């Protein structure tokens, strides 16, 4: 009797209310009595959906790099710009901080996300027992930074809207921008489909009902938890 699932309980994903799963009381799938959200002890088909979106993301990343994300026309000379090319231009302009931001958002983050989500999925499928906490942190990081890759698409959109100066200079978006946008969306869907609770299923280390720790700055997992008055919680 430790996790909600093991106790026959399920927490609402939207409002957090705990509901007891019982056969006679609920339709399938059961719904939260407070906010009517659908309740699943674990997200259905989590691993399969997450793999499917991830593969779609990797596939979309190929045209994102092959096709130009935008075309720059200066005094009639049109030039295609790819994702990696944009980084080199900024680097040559000596705008190092922005060059690094662009490189991280458009190359490092997507590739790391592919690797991280694949690793998490494989670790769940193989039933890894080690480093559950670190894998949860990796999952959080993936979830948090994934959407920031959209910055590249927005930069292209803003440049295309702003740089429309007659015969002097023009910027137009390319097919690569759409492909890159799809990469970001697909990998976000992949992370959303992945149920992090699966990382912890089968964990045998903790006692029955636990009391939460506090944010006082030194809340750590394990048994070193203290209430605000200094009394140990666990």
């Amino acid at each position: 009797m430790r996790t909600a699932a093991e106790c026959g309980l399920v927490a609402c994903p939207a409002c957090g209310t705990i509901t007891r799963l019982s056969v006679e009381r609920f339709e399938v799938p059961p719904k939260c009595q407070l906010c009517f959200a659908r309740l699943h002890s674990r997200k259905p088909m989590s691993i399969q959906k997450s793999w499917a979106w991830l593969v779609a993301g990797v596939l979309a990343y190929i045209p994102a790099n092959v096709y130009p994300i935008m075309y720059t026309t200066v005094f009639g000379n049109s030039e295609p710009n790819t994702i990696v090319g944009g980084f080199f231009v900024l680097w040559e302009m000596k705008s190092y901080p922005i060059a690094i931001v662009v490189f991280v958002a458009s190359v490092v983050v997507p590739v790391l996300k592919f690797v991280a989500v694949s690793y998490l999925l494989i670790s769940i499928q193989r039933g890894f027992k080690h480093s559950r906490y670190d894998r949860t942190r990796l999952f959080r990081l993936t979830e948090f930074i994934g959407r920031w890759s959209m910055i590249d698409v927005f930069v292209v959109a803003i440049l295309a809207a702003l740089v429309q100066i007659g015969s002097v200079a023009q910027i137009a978006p390319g097919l690569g921008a759409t492909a890159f946008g799809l990469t970001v969306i697909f990998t976000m869907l992949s992370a959303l489909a992945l149920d992090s609770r699966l990382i912890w299923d089968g964990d045998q280390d903790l006692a029955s009902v636990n009391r939460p720790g506090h944010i006082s700055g030194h809340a750590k997992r394990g048994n070193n938890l203290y209430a605000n008055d200094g009394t140990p919680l666990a």
Partner: protein
Amino acid sequence: MLGARPSSDDSMTRRVNDGDLVESVLSNLVACHECDLLHEKVAIEIGAEARCMRCNAGLYTNQQNSIDRAVAVGLAALIMFVVANSFPFLQISVSGNSQSMSIISAVFALSSEGQWLLAVVCFGFILLFPLLRMVGLLYILLPLRLHRRLPGTELVFRGIVFLSPWSMMEIYLFGAIVALVKLAAMANIELGHSFWAFALLNVLAAVSLQMIDNHSLWELISESREGEESPAGELV
């Protein structure tokens, strides 16, 4: 707030099996949304956040939930949204020629060059989803202020939760800064009124959504639901 209750495996099982006490026991429990570990709710001081023992995810907070403040900030954010979309966002001038754009121009720029799929998606991420979230929050909070509840509150609430990763105003703002730096070397760029309004909007929207945590919000909505039933009963 619920106090710490000493409980063992036995006492919990007993209480949960005892029909009438089921709901009170369940409301005293919280499950970690990231690892599913059950915790007993304990009282924490105002401003503190309880965290999961096992994976350190945030479980619940004890903040001073003020509907009035959340409504005020939410309304301010909505006004800023209108302002941010009514003036030029950025202006560029190169050798006598100048050009300005508003926030939505970025969407049109994508659609005019055939990237219409991306244009539709960006319209959602930058304008539609953030707007729906702000309006949705006010749809719940304004009636709650009068201890009422409009139809579809549940749907609106779930919509706000569902849309949160897809609302990307802050990313657009940083995108504008990157674009500025890219152009700064070759053109003269000016920030329009919209830019500042949009920056302020980002702060306000973030603050208004964080003023009330989801669970306290539902406690308030449940109370208003009970309040709705009693006057109707008196009429009959």
